[in-house]
């Protein structure tokens, strides 16, 4: 169901007097939307609005925005809610069409919301979007570190260590006793929700507290990748990817990470890799940050690498293609939340607002400010393979655990195996994928 973009669509002439020689693209947009405006129509309208903006067709843009505005509602049904965030993103984009003279920090128009750590714990369990990755990853990690007395996890994620309590719990119950666990995180993370009201160090303290309570020897390190110089500060503003470059330089210099010989090194990427730019231009070595990361990590000799991310290709340069793909992907959380939370639930609204944040970034920004560079599991897997890694399939036990997890959520959540990926599905549609990698030549 491809939306018709610009260009004239023939409209039946029933009233020639009213008909102008210039046919309105809007008529094309609404061709077929005879009754209520359903998802397909909304999608078409969004696309028309976007292309109107791109061609400076003010009339059309505002007409479409007006129509959309009358349908959109952040407290309506899922389609309406989804549309409201898209509309907002488009308007936000409209306001950015011309570059500003003042330093524009690229922050979103949606005010940031900070959560407490227990709120976050509940947040990640609202729908299995994150917990799916945690469960599959922890299970795979547990298996991979069998026999090692020490484990070091390099944790790259956006969920502030919510993944680890269950792993610590599982380690504590290991028949041969728990290993010593060390978790290292970068000091800065992508500026996206969910946001916490406490520092990373405090999170680490609590986690350490819990580990102690479970008698698991534990260390928590934050490696500082924030700029230490004035120049660095400026560079951060100019290019948010600077933080990532700093991470890469740390990785390139393993002594800074304090790696030990007898340690099983685990690299954990949860909903994080998509923030590493995949653009080639402008990079010094001709490779994208993403590819650079993938390559560098091999040099660390990891025991296992887990990669979990959102299964959609959303880094195309064409706005209209992004709108289509995004609309047909991010309907999933809205639809899922609808099944068990009422329309006015603040939890639901907040979660949707965070998804709206993502939508805004994808639709409203360009260049380095567009940090959400989602890549489908298949494509991302290809990168890892190209870089010399082997894809390890998930064992049956893991699959069972994930299934048990999904059982406890709404019945639309499912799971499937695609090649060697595990994919979380909602009503059959792919949402999140999980993969496990080892450097080629290191597999057992």
């Amino acid at each position, binding site marked *: 169901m491809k939306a018709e973009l610009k260009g004239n669509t023939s409209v039946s*002439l*029933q*009233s020639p007097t009213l008909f*102008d020689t*210039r046919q*309105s*693209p*809007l008529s094309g947009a609404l061709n077929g939307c*005879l*009754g*209520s405006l*359903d998802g397909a129509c909304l999608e078409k309208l969004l696309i028309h609005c976007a292309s109107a903006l791109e061609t*400076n067709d003010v009339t059309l843009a505002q007409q479409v925005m*007006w*129509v959309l*505005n009358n*349908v959109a*509602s952040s*407290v*309506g*049904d899922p389609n*309406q809610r989804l549309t409201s965030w898209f509309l*907002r993103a488009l308007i936000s984009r*409209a*306001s950015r069409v011309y570059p*500003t003279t*003042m330093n524009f920090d690229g922050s*979103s*128009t949606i*005010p940031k919301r*900070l959560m*407490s750590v*227990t*709120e976050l*714990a509940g947040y990640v*369990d609202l729908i299995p979007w994150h917990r799916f990755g945690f469960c599959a990853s922890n299970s795979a990690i547990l298996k991979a570190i069998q026999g090692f007395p020490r484990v070091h996890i390099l944790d790259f994620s956006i969920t502030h260590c919510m993944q680890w*309590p269950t792993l610590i*719990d599982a380690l504590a119950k290991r028949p041969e006793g728990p290993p010593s666990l060390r978790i290292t995180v970068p000091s800065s993370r992508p500026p996206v929700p969910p946001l916490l*009201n*406490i520092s990373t160090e405090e999170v680490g303290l*609590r986690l350490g*507290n819990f580990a*102690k309570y479970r008698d698991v*020897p534990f260390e928590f390190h934050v490696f500082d990748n924030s700029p230490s110089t004035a120049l660095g500060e400026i560079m951060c503003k100019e290019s948010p990817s600077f933080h990532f470059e700093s991470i890469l330089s740390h990785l390139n210099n393993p002594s800074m990470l304090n790696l030990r010989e007898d340690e099983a090194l685990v690299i954990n990427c949860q909903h994080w890799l998509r923030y590493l730019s995949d653009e080639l231009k402008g990079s010094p070595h001709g490779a994208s940050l993403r590819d650079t990361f993938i390559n560098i990590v091999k040099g660390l000799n990891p025991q296992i690498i887990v990669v979990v991310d959102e*299964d959609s290709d959303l880094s195309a340069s064409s706005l209209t293609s992004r709108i289509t793909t995004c609309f047909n*992907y991010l*309907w999933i959380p809205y*639809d899922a939340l609808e*099944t068990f939370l009422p329309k006015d639930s603040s939890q639901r609204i*907040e979660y949707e*607002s965070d998804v709206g944040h993502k939508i805004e970034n994808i639709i409203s920004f360009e260049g380095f400010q567009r940090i959400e560079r989602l890549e489908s599991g298949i494509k991302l897997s290809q990168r890892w393979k190209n870089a010399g890694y082997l894809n390890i399939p998930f064992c049956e036990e893991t699959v069972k655990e994930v299934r048990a*997890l999904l059982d406890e959520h709404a*019945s639309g959540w*499912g799971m499937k195996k695609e090649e060697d990926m595990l994919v979380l*599905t909602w*009503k*059959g*549609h*792919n*949402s999140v994928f999980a993969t496990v990698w080892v450097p080629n030549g290191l597999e057992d």
Partner: protein
Amino acid sequence: MQVDLDNSSIVSGEASVSSSGNQSTQPPKPSAKKKRNLPGMPDPDAEVIALSPKTLLATNRFVCEICNKGFQRDQNLQLHRRGHNLPWKLRQRSSKEVKKRVYVCPEPSCVHHNPSRALGDLTGIKKHFCRKHGEKKWKCDKCSKKYAVQSDWKAHSKICGTREYKCDCGTLFSRRDSFITHRAFCDALAEESARAQTQTPALVNPNSEPDPNTQPVDSSPPAPAPPPAPSPPPAPSPSPSPPAPPRTTRLISPVLSNKSPELPEKPPRIVEAPVTTGLIGNCSSTTSSSSNGNTSCSVFASLFASSTASASLQNPQPPVFTDLIRAMARPDPPTDMTRPSSTETISLCLATNHGSSLFGTAGQERRQYAPPSQPAMSATALLQKAAQMGAAATNASLLRGFGIVSSSSSSGQQDGLHWSQRQVETEKSSSVPAGLGLGHCDGSSGLKELMMGTPSMFGPKQTTLDFLGLGMAAGGGSPSSGLSALITSIGGGLDVATATAAAAASYGGAEFSSKDIGRRSS
């Protein structure tokens, strides 16, 4: 190698069969790239089947996709399917005999009515229809969750309230991993271990910085009694003999508020931050250091505030766009709406029957439960209204205010609007070059200028402007031609939405046989 999980017990509802990929119909070829459809973009070759509500609600919920024979139990269906020569093989081969089928929901307002969101298996669509559009007759006594399908209700009742994990702070969990995660970060644990170490009552850490946001800061009452949970983690208060490196378990001041005991089954709720805007929550108070101030945040917040709509389906009260405009101009959402009541003539503004629109309406109160609204206006009606924007649509719009020059030939300009535009531009040049970003937390954004500019243009001939800054001459100007053409091509003002709603209602009340299936296919 493809594992089709569909044949094994479908544990999690609409499981593996994806309508979004056709790789399940092709044997894996090592060299060829697997064509992979985007989510939501089903196999274009798939046959889209639209069954009637009656069919979907039929008791024989398990229907063979090949011959459409119905069964009460999934096991019987599976046995029967074997007679069709192992269905999974058929799925793998993209055969001419059995075409890939996807199913749409008959309910027009449903997201799955759209073929691009079709569900890949028959059982899935039936279950969906039942659960989503069927009447929820079955209610759990303990937690009052409602179910349309008796077996779902039975299955839920079995587990409701059985497995409960209780944190020291009092919160209840039905899932172990949620419990563990919560517990790890809960204040109760922090305080308890501090107690264990220091042997003194809970201290507030003097180093903790005052929390900038206004999340209610209740100290969680540390439950002194050990949790009576059936399967608790190892006893909470042994003071582990301080092992290896002495860790300073610094007490973190309780900046959180822990929830009082929740109903089981529900995940612990996020603190009910006073949500002034449905979308954003504590806009004014939760600004992180990255935003520069409250002004534009609340400005933008009010722009997108979902507010209590006075308008309902039956009683449309046109919310005033000027309110929105004024809201944009001032940091605080205005509470008094003194703008002319001649808003009746504005068919342009948010005054549709819909009511629950994106943009703010009078009285920026938080919207309470909205009646389940389909997009109430038909495309036809919306188009008619949009058309009435007329020629004026080309001028002094929101976008124009940002300097986007219209390339479309504008058919006539109204003076007032022209002036508005000029005024905007003047104001813009005199203001700090703040740029146009709405995200700019600085009062002189272009949008704000525009919005401040427009209200003053309300002259007698102009009733009001909608948010886009369009003037609507009373009585409506000449309709924009393209839209009229569309309207006439659609064929008039039949409010199809109403008809649809009526039809939908009849689906909802459809006879659902309570004589249900023994085994729940989950």
